[in-house]
């Protein structure tokens, strides 16, 4: 299945776009998604932590992703 991933903050710079598309197997988890993204965009791993949300809710590594789910990557922001 094809999963659309929305990028926020510095993830926009890392992906080079506000939205990227990933091809994933049907029973993929958030853990799989993070692994795939970090392979493709090594700078993402260096952030130490970033929030992954599915359909506007915080997602845990074990959560399964379904077709048409909207995934968002939200990195920390420091400015004030």
């Amino acid at each position: 299945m094809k999963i659309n991933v929305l990028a926020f903050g510095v993830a926009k710079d890392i992906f080079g776009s506000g939205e990227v598309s990933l091809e994933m197997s049907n029973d993929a988890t958030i853990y799989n998604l993070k692994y795939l993204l970090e392979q493709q965009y090594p700078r993402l791993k260096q952030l130490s932590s970033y929030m992954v949300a599915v359909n506007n809710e915080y997602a845990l590594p074990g959560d399964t992703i379904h077709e048409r789910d909207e995934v968002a990557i939200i990195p920390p922001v420091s400015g004030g």
Partner: protein
Amino acid sequence: MNEDLQRYSCQIALPGFGREAQNLIGQARVLIVGAGGLGCPAGQYLASTGVGTLGIADYDSVSISNLHRQVLYTPADEGKNKAEVACVKLAQQNPGIRLVAHTQKVTSDNVMEIIAGYDIVLDGTDNFETRYLLNDACVLSGKPLVYGAIYQFEGQVAVWNIDLGKGTRSPNYRDLFPEVDATQIPNCTEGGVIPTLAGIIGAMQANEVIKYIAKTGDLLAGKVLIFDAQSMQSRIFKMGPVTKTHIRRLKATIAIPGINAADLKERMLHDDTLELIDVRTLQERDAFDIGGTHIPLDELEKYMAYFTSANTKVLYCSSGKRSNEGVKLILKHIPEADVFSLEGGLGSFK
């Protein structure tokens, strides 16, 4: 008509407000940490709303390059302590409230004592170390914390650590981001920030503080709001109702060895072995530099071997923020390294 009733009549008239809510606001003690882009508008609205005791904590001084988003200050305030200037201006705006300036740096040694006098804390800081420190201190002392952060066109807002009864509390900053490598996240000096975003997010933080005190509306507890000033879209992400973190003690903040501009200039005249390291981006260095080697902050970790040599090294950037992060990173790897950060950055070196 009573002067106070007249001043606050247009908010007392709100549904869910009334005189009881105004009394609560008049008795409330709110601490703003960071009198910068977020703290300025938050301070203005908390003062105008009549918060009884308003504390402003900032050890930093007004700098010209921040005036584009720090609307309480004028060029005439350059170099003055921000907390003090902010308190003077806000006292003029509302002489009926008590203003308290905290001018020392907030560290793991003093944070518990500083926040002890307040009911709720507003995070207007500009660095991760103080964000985590405030978060952990608020969790340990059971106080709500209203979080805000901005970068380029995007802002985040949330309310942490709300008492839900039965010993449970709503999520905090470590539920959102357990830890951060600060050298990998660009700050406003590098990536820029649109001034109006500071106004929008800072006013949203003050809004959540007022709702908390007045016991009205739905707080952003267990949620994080992300606002994009380019599209004007905002989204609220749900984090779950209860925190899953277990914060038991404060992480000690590290005092960063610093050198001020005058001392550095003096030393550069006499000490040939002194080495300068510019940790800014290539674009910034192309525009202007004061010599030395160039290692951008996000690549610094690869060059640790360089810092084992005996020569004194001074890291510099535009404001001192990134050179501080760099020195912290080096000392984590090489505790005995002879490194300093140029305090105030190139802005103070002119």
